[in-house]
């Protein structure tokens, strides 16, 4: 009997480990952040009021969230972050799809080389790569010098410290995260399917939208999430490449925590950011599941 039960116990343990991990390193910290967001800032250590005051009364305030709603700066920053992340995601998709398609359709020896080239930038520190873009985008950087040398312009074009620089940085940094899942779903696709569609009267464009695109959809969704989510909270790229007025939510979060030491406000910023990310993802997944069921 015990011999028969043993594998079940092991199965339970293996299943429990990731749950335990999530509980300790995600759910618990989240609960702490949630608690801090409902506190008042004080000059003390830690710099927020405890959950229960001296009399043992529950002390909870929604002031921080109300402040986020009333101060236009936050709404503006959230919107701008969503917009920048969204634009970078779209551009990554537009650039990444043809690249992933090309890799998936190349000969197998060429394929591994091309994939290596996609992954190669990860061998260099993210910070260094973003830093290198400063050298490229500078007023007297490689790009401007080349343009001036070619006579395209006689004075430097201001790219560095603009939203455009952030946009370039985001797209560059997250492009591989778009290409890899797209490649995975395109590589699995049987080329005969596209030919069959053409054989049945679909032009190349129609065959793409009827066959390739729907079959690549899981890859498209995964790629978009992998780009959008980190781009939304990105701190390093706007900090290094953006100007003082190109304020994104990652930067705001950092400033509230470390510059203003307003932990409760920073926590509420973080929670709203999380909601902004989680709600569309849950919605999308449910929509996808429903669609899969309907088909």
């Amino acid at each position, binding site marked *: 009997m015990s011999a028969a039960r043993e594998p079940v116990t092991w199965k339970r343990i293996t299943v429990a480990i990731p749950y335990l991990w999530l509980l300790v390193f995600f759910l618990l910290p989240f609960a702490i952040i949630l608690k801090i967001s409902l506190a008042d800032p004080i000059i003390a250590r830690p710099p927020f009021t405890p959950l229960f005051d001296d009399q043992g009364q529950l002390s909870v305030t929604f002031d921080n969230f109300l402040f986020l709603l009333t101060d236009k700066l936050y709404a503006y920053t959230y919107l701008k972050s969503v917009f920048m992340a969204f634009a970078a995601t779209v551009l990554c998709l537009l650039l990444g799809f043809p690249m992933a398609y090309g890799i998936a359709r190349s000969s197998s020896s060429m394929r591994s080389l091309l994939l290596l080239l996609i992954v190669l930038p990860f061998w260099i520190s993210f910070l260094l790569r973003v830093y290198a873009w400063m050298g490229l985008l500078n007023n007297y950087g490689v790009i401007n010098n080349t343009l001036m040398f070619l006579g395209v312009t006689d004075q430097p074009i201001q790219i560095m410290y603009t939203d455009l620089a952030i946009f370039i940085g985001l797209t560059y940094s997250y492009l591989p995260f778009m290409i890899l899942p797209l490649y995975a779903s395109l590589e699995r696709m049987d080329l*005969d*399917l596209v*030919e069959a*569609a*053409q*054989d*049945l*009267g679909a032009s190349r464009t129609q065959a793409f939208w009827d066959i390739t695109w729907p079959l690549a959809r899981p890859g498209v969704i995964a790629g978009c999430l992998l780009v959008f989510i980190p781009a939304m909270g990105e701190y390093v790229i706007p900090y290094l490449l953006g100007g003082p007025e190109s304020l994104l939510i990652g930067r705001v979060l950092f400033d509230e925590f470390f510059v203003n030491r307003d932990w409760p406000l920073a926590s509420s910023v973080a929670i709203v950011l999380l909601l902004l990310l989680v709600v569309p993802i849950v919605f999308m997944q449910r929509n996808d599941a429903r669609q899969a069921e309907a088909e």
Partner: protein
Amino acid sequence: MNDESSFIRIRGVSKHFGDFVAVDDVDLDIGKGELFSILGGSGCGKTTLLRMLAGFETPTNGSIEIDGTDITAVPPYERPVNMMFQSYAVFPHMDVEKNVGYGLRKDGLDKGEIDSRVDDVIRLVQLEPFRSRKPDQLSGGQRQRVALARALIKRPKVLLLDEPLAALDKKLREHTQFELMNIQDELGITFVVVTHDQEEAMTLSTRIAVMEKGRFLQVGTPKEIYEYPKSRFVADFVGTINTFEGTVSEVGAESITVTCEELPVPVTALRNEDISTGQKVCIAVRPEKIFISREQPDDDESIAMPAVVDDLGYLGNRSLYRIRLANGQIVQVSRQNRRRSARRFVEWEDAVWVSWRPRSTVVIASGD
């Protein structure tokens, strides 16, 4: 060639991939309503030829006409041709009905017309119970029917089939084979089948083209290909055959005689036109045309030689024998097991006679 026999007209078609010549200056006429097979080993160019008919490859040279229209440069989606892929290529994200109706939707037909034609074709291939299933809920045989229905629904002038039976198990193959022939008969569509399986080609086709290294070695009815192979490759590729090298020693009015080093007696064969004394030839005999007997056959016409049973294999409906001649040469013989008996007709190392009739001897001019 009359008009009937050149519904598909292939003239001087070649296809080069870099230095590699996949199809080498091929001419072919296929008649309306034929069930034509292109038979060959892998890499012989048969699939490339089929893909040129479908429009997925453009010929390097030459032209292809279907029903009097030159389609050499017409893209696949505008050709009156549909193809059943070897992989079936059933769209995984569409159910059976959507798959089958795809071609008509692309033609922009109205919904009523599409629905009624989808119904007809689904009935034809007996898929009614599965019409709203997704491909991953279908068996291999059912997926193949979807592919067939999808290709038939546009009523193409020509249906191309790439190894249609290769992925099916033996019982299903036999069943599907006859069903394909029935459908072809019913609809009168010209079928062009590509296969590496000679049995498939034999049973399905009205005519077969045997292909090797980008060229046709022989085009003819299954019987012609099997009984009158014109080259050693064709003889070997289609079925099993015993071949012996020899020299023509005598040319008579009706028959010729060939002496072979590997055989103890001279071999007689029916005379065909262009043969002369001293010519090097290859003679070939099918295993089922050879008789085994315990006594020397008493007719003086047969080619007969004493031998010993080297090995035998019982296959149920027939038995295969490897017979060893006095000089060690092995001859393969097959024999129908007409009589119900648990005893063996001959045993290992039995002394026997093997013989065949002169009309069974195939003579192939050497070098072919």
